[in-house]
Structure formats: structure tokens, C-alpha cells
């Protein structure tokens, strides 16, 4: 139990570069990630906090255009939503517990 807890904390506390390394990095993404961290850390704390609560006032104008979904991140987002939704819809039939009594009434 304690080991699991420690593992969870360790994962949560892992420094960014370490995690980036685990995900099979090339040399290029690391600086990008690093820049992002520096940028995020430099942000006004209130703005950051608001961003995390889903009410981000940061510039996301790119998300206002459908062209976003022609970019890799947008395509991945569509795939995740479509695949996730389709899987849930498909498995719904297997999930259902059909009432014996109600089926008999039909």
C-alpha cells in the first residue's frame, strides 16, 4: 500500500524532463517543453489558477477556428473524442441489464 502511495506521489512529483524522457523524446521536444514550463511559471499566478479551473483568459484564438482540427493536435483530439464516444456507445449494449419482467410485458 505504502509503495503504491509513494509511486503515485513520485509520478506526480516527477520533474518534467524526466517525464519527457520516459515518453520517448527526441532532442527537439525537450526545449519546447522547457520553454512551456518557463512560460507557465512566469505567468501571473491568478491567470494560471484560472487557466486550471477551465476559465482561462489566456490567448487561445487558435481554438476559435475550425482549422485547428487540421493540425496534428486537433486531429488527435477528434480521434480521441470519436474513438472514446464510439467505444462507449458500442459497449452500452453489453452493459444493459434487461429487465426480465419488462421484457415479458412487451
Amino acid at each position, binding site marked *: 500500500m505504502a509503495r503504491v502511495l509513494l509511486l503515485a*506521489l513520485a509520478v506526480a512529483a516527477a520533474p518534467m524532463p524526466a517525464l519527457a524522457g520516459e515518453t520517448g523524446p527526441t532532442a527537439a521536444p525537450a526545449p519546447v517543453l522547457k520553454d512551456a514550463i518557463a512560460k507557465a511559471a512566469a505567468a501571473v499566478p491568478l491567470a494560471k489558477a484560472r487557466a486550471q479551473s477551465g476559465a482561462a483568459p489566456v490567448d487561445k484564438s487558435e481554438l476559435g477556428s475550425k482549422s485547428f482540427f487540421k493540425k496534428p493536435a486537433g486531429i488527435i483530439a477528434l480521434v480521441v473524442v470519436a474513438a472514446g464516444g464510439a467505444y462507449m*456507445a458500442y459497449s452500452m449494449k453489453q452493459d444493459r441489464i434487461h429487465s426480465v419482467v419488462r421484457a415479458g410485458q412487451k
Partner: protein
Amino acid sequence: MKRTIVLALVLVMAAAGMAAAQTLTGTISGKVVDQQGAVLPGVTVTLTGKTGVKTTVSDARGEFRFVGLTPGTYDVKSELQGFRSASQSNLDVSMGKSVDVNLSMGVGGMTEVVEVVANAMTIDPTTTATDTNMAQSLLFSMPITHNNPAVSLLNYSPGVNDSSAFGGSASSGNSLMLDGVDTRDPEAGTAWTFYNYNIIDEVQVGSLGQPAEYGGFTGAIINTITKSGGNRFSLLAEYRYSTEGLGSKNATAAMIALNKNLASPTTVLTLKDYTVQLGGPLKKDKMFFFLSAQRYEISQTFTGLVRGEISPRFNGKLTWQPTSSDTITGSLQYDQYNQTGRTAFIPSYAITNHSQTIDQDSPEYIWNAQWRKVFGSSTFLEAKFLGYWGYYDLNPVSNAAAHYDAGTGAYSGGAGYWYQADRTRNQLNVSLSKYVGSHSFKFGAEIERSNVRNRFAYSPLGAGLPTGYFVDYYGAPSYAYGYTYDIKGKNKRDTFYAQDAWKVGRGLTLNFGVRGDRIRGESTTEKKDLYSTMSYGPRLGAAIDLSGKGTSVVRAFYGQMYDGAIFASWGRAVPGLTDFITYTVGPNWKSVKEDSRVPATLKYKVGDNLKHPRVDEVNVSWDQQIGRAFKFTATGIYRNWKNFINSMLIGGTWTPNTFNSTFTNQSPVIGPTQLQLFKWGNKGVVPQQFLIQNTDNVDYNLTNGSVLHAAGTRQYKGIMLQFQRALRDRWQAQISYVLSSTTGTIRNSSTSGVSSGQFETPNTIVVNAGGPTDYDRRHEVKIFAGYQIPKAEISVNAYFRYLSGWPYSPYVRVGTGTTAWSSTLNINLVERGYFVTPNSTNLDLRFEKVFDIGLHRFGIYADISNTLNRAYMTSPQTRYPNISLTDLKGKSFTVKFGDPTAINAGRQITLGGRWSF
């Protein structure tokens, strides 16, 4: 050249405040002045939100107003030739709340902008409602359970525990609103529809000092608004996972010694919770969509058995803004609530194998269509048609009859019964808000029609035998009972309300309102109304802005709130119940023979001139803003419930009869106990028929000619202290302490105040029925706190709760020989509250690591519930002297009075990851 000047000043609350008037929308209003404080008419004021831009022009008094706003974050900007522009960013608009802004414009170029940073914590100086809201930042970051969000969020709020809000009845006393849809079961008020925690955009818990537009509750309202699409595409993909290996057992050796089944407490075997959501524009500023899909899957053990739930949930919402003043919204939810391993006749603590459980089939739809129309800046119309449909069928795994041993308290046999429940609820709500001078009027009408159908049958007592259940006595056959029912009814509620918030001046706002509820209950089969009440609930309040800046506000409120339409209060008078038959049982339970029969026809009838259950409330509160991010609130509360509805025997007379109990207790010293009970004196002379009536004050005729008086009472007195620290500089907190007392003869568990047999004999209302109620938690401390660690960018969020224990008392089952009643009665041996379970503490934690990469936010987190792995009793054994249970090997053992039959869950870690933009 554009120049931005951040002043970071305390936002001055404008004098022209608006009332808390819209149930699902908010208001931004304010005044534009020059540097000398003179009003500026003709200023163009622009509001920017996630669905586009709105503009208005300040009037002759320099005032402007945006009404009917969807809750969210907005920016306001004022522009006038020859003046520097002024703007206010990040204004948080909550449902039913008004945000007031003063914009000060100095002489200069229009391209220069003076930006004022809003207070992180604001107070609405015009409302009498005491907030017990949970801030959005708390909802997002705290380790809050995602299961059954409406009820669980209610219980995280100050003053609410065990679903009892400020002394109100659990379940039936609370209104559970989802985008304006009352999602309660119209039968008895329990949560009927369950939704995805991740579709919540904003939650408001209202209970104290509510204006007339809020009704249908005598406890609290939880008002949830779901997410919508906006001008920017947004995504959430989340996965949460837990397993048995991430959990811990918490029962102590001492607890297990008292009840060996506690060695196998309820624990999570697997939890898999997937959500994907996408929202955005179909046409910029005009049309938006939001789609969500979830699969919630959990399996748990309880006393060694497995209980499973798989709930797929799908949500879709379309928002259309054909003009800048019209918003049309349509939404639909479909979900299933599939459960296996549910308990039925046999309580969970006594179940020993899966065949004693039932499976549940529950599909349901929730629909919602809304139109909002803004006429100028002073009139706002809102119309909604909403409702839900669903059913649940309980199907026993084994159709064998259930057994209850009246001698030992043990259970055996199968799950025991079938049950099918069908529900439909439709509501039409229309409201008109009108702002005239210093008045903020709101008028509204609501029509509700909700259908209830319940079908029930016990399992057969054996092959070729009627349905029923066996009552044994120390392992031998004794007798059996049986009946079935198919009842259908319709709640019909017609409501109107009118309210005004009158800004008198000098910081004083008077709130007036009245709400009228006409509630009828129709027997669908007979097509006639059995229940009919007309209630008028006044709401009177005053709010005084002591500081003139909205930073120190004192409020006072008196109001009468009526319950919603509850089928359970009159449903027993609906035909469809078969005769109640008692059987003698042959050897080895192989045969039964009818012994007696209580005719079902007209067994219950509804009395005339009934009054609908209500609560009278008086509260006084003080809100004090401290700095820009802190708020302190102190509230004193008094509540008194009235118009309880219960059933009484028609024409019964009662003979005092002494009952001797061997009950003894060392600390405090009690017993042996002698109780003055009452025997049905004219049994056989008058039939066992009941009148459903108000039971605030009733009399029982004794056979010696005297009269025995009984009263249905419940009162709540409390002091609530709240300290809120808005999310700023990496930390936030919400701390509350409630000292309270709830006493009376009517319990606050579920439907005790609207439907029970407590008054059918004097024994259960006169004999030790008073004292602290079930959910009287004397001391309550709840703390939410979060901190984001710099550099590591890990947020640590904690929820801590301390609660006093539950009051309880020992009872004995008194047989029919003593009371001449048709069944055994549970009689308290001492007044309720003589015993209290131990206090409980709980600490939940969330650690989240956030990665912000461009537009994308990735988070991985661990939720640790019951971090300290504390164990506390959640259910004491209250039967004296003991009950008999069966362990997982089928071996019987006894649990004594006061020992635990259930404890809380042990530590459980849930891991989660989410991607959003």
C-alpha cells in the same frame, strides 16, 4: 497607442445593485463616471464572453446593465470619444447573482485603456441569501467524489450531512436541479437521474434566505448548470482508475471483535471512469455545440459480495443566438444505471450470498429546451420546457422467498421481491424580470406534471404458493405475510411567484416575495384528485450594505418554504394494493394457510383541509470582506417545520399497558426499564383503516375516557461560520464550522415527515420518540484547502471533515400480545439521543501535476480518500439486546446493542489523467 494601466484596486460596488433574480443566469450592471465622479451618459459599454460580444449604452444616470447572462467569465469595456477607455476583466458571473462594476473614465484618447482588476471575492449587497456555494476552482481541483454528484456535492456543503440540510428531511427535503430540471424522484425526493461530474459548469447550493423564485424544498436546493459550447473549441478527455490494490482495510481489531463481518468492509475492486467531451462553435457568435460521453464502471465488495455498476452517460447541447437578445438552448441526456448485487429484502449487513441480491435495469432521458429574450436592458424573459423519463426494475437473482427470524433478528432465503418503478416529469417554467428604477421585479409561473407508477410483489413462498415472506422464530416456522401492489399517481403542481428587491437607498435593500403552490395528487386509475393543497409562502428580507462599498453586509430574513410535490405523502390512498394476508406456516415451510386478511380497499384515505409540509425560517447573517481575497460570513439560523403528514387509525381507542424491559446500561445508568405502552382497545370493533392527515397536534382516545396528546415537531437552531479565501497567489481555502441542534419527535431521515406509520399507534410517537433527530450532528467542521507548489507545479488539495456522532437509542421489538397491533413494533427504550456514536474525522487529498504545453493542459493526479485510514462507525446496532448475523461461512454470531454494523470505507487511491484545452 494602446496603453494598459493595471490599477489593482478594490472594486467599488456600484450603488445600483440588482437583485438575485435569475435562477440560471446572472447580471452585470454598473455605472460609468468621470474622474470627478460625475455620471457619464451615452457611453458605449461592451461585454465580451465566451459566446460573443454584447453592447449597450449608459443611460442618463450613467448606468448600464447586461441581464440574462450565462454564468461564466466576462470582460466589460466602456468607450467614449474624448475619454480613456475603462475596462474590467475576469468578472465571474454566477447564477442568480449580480456583479456590479463602477467604471471610471479619465480624459484622454480612446485607445488608452484603464483596466481595473476585480476582487477575487465579492459580496452581493442586495440579496438576503446566505451563500453556501462551492467555488468553481474548488470543484475542479478538490478530491470530490464523482459518484452521484448532486447528492455528494450537497453533502460537501456547510450545514449539510447525510443529505439532511440544516435539519431538513434527507432526500424529500432537498431539490436537485440540473439546468432547471428537478431531477428528484417525484415519489419521495431521492436522486433519480445521475449525471457525469464533468458536465458541471457551475454549482450553487442554496438553502438559507432564498427568494420566492426558489421553492419545492424544506432543506436545500442544489442548482447545477451544465457546460455549453462557446466561440472557442474546448476538449476534455479524462480517465480515472482504481483497484483493490490501491485500497486499504481500516477496521480495527476491536471493531472486528464486536462484529466479525467488519473484517470484510465495502471496498473498491475496480473503478474505470472515462469521459470525452468536445464543445465549440458551429457558427461564430451564433451557434454552439457541446457533446459529452462517459462510461462509469465500478465494482465493490460488501460483506464479501460484489456489487457492480456500469453507467454510460451521453449529453448533447445546442445553443443558438439568432439575435443578440435571443438565446435558444436545447439539450438531451441519455444514460443507463445498470447495477448488480443490490440489496433488497435483506439488509446489506446481513447478506451472505449473491443470490440474495437483485439486479437493476434503469435507462433514462433528460430533456431541456430554453428560450431567453432580453428586451432592452430592463426586461428579461425566460421560458423553459424540461423534464425526464426513466424507470428502474429490480430483478432478484434468486426467486426464493426471504426469511426473517423474529427471535434472533437473522435473515435468510432469497432476495425476496420484485419491484418496478416508472417515472416521468414534465415542467414548464416562465419568468419575467423587470428593472424599474430602484426596483428589481421578477414574476414567474411553473407547471409541473409528474407520473409515478410502482409495482411490487414478494417472491413466491414456494412452488404453487402465494407470494410473501416468512417470519421465523428461533429457526422454526412461525407465520408469513404477503401482498402486492400496482399503484399509479400524478403530481400536479401549479406555481406562481412574485418578488422585488427594492434598493431603498443608503445601502438598504428590501426583499419582498410570495410564492403560491397549488399541489394536487391524482389517482391515475380513478382519474380524481385525492390530495389538494394551496400554499402561500412569504419571503421577507433586508440587506444593509454597512460600508457602502459592498464589503460589509448584514442581512435578515424570514420566510416560509414548502416542500415539492411528493407522491409518498398521499400515495397510500391510491388503489392498487392487494389485501394484506397473514399465513400460518406448515412444517419445513412446505405449506401456508391463510390466517387473517386486512382488506386493502380504502385502508388509507386522505383527510380534508390538508396543509402542505413547510419550514419557517429566520436567519441573520453578516458578510465581511477582508482584503481582496478573503470573506468571512457568520449566520444564525432558526428553522421550525410544520404541517407534517402521517397516517392515523380511524376511531381507535387505546388501553395503557405496561411493558417491562430488561434493558440496562452502566453509563449512563439506565434500567431495567418499565414502559407505558398502549394496546389497541377496540380491535375487531373498528376496522384497521387510516386517515392521512397533518399530525402537528393529535389526540388519542384512551379506553378510560381520557385523551392522550401527541405532537409532531422538529426544530433546528444553528450558528454557521464560514471563511473563504479565493484562489490567488497559489492558494485557496474554504473553512466552515457549524454548531447546531435539531430536536423533535419527527425524525429527519427521508420521508419521516411526509409519510410514515409513526402515528398509527401512540406507541411510536408518545413513547421515547423525542430528542435529537437522527442527523443531529452537533459540531461540524469542513475545510477545503489547496496550494500549488512553486517550481514543481504540483497542486496539493485537501478536504477535511469533522463531525459529531449520530444520536441513537436502543429499541425492542414489542409483540402483538402487548399492543394488539397487526405487527410487531420497534419501541425506543430511552429517548433518542441518549446514546451518540463516536465523532468522526476524515481527510481526503489530491495531488496533481500539471503540464501546460501551448494550448494544451495535461494533468495527472492521485486522489486519496480517507488518507489516514481512520475507521468510524456509520451504523450502530440499535436493537436491544442484540441481533444475530451470519458470517461469510454461514456461521451465526451476535452483535450487541451499540456495536457497529457498518463502518466507513478505508483508504482508497484513485489515479487520474486529463487532457483539456
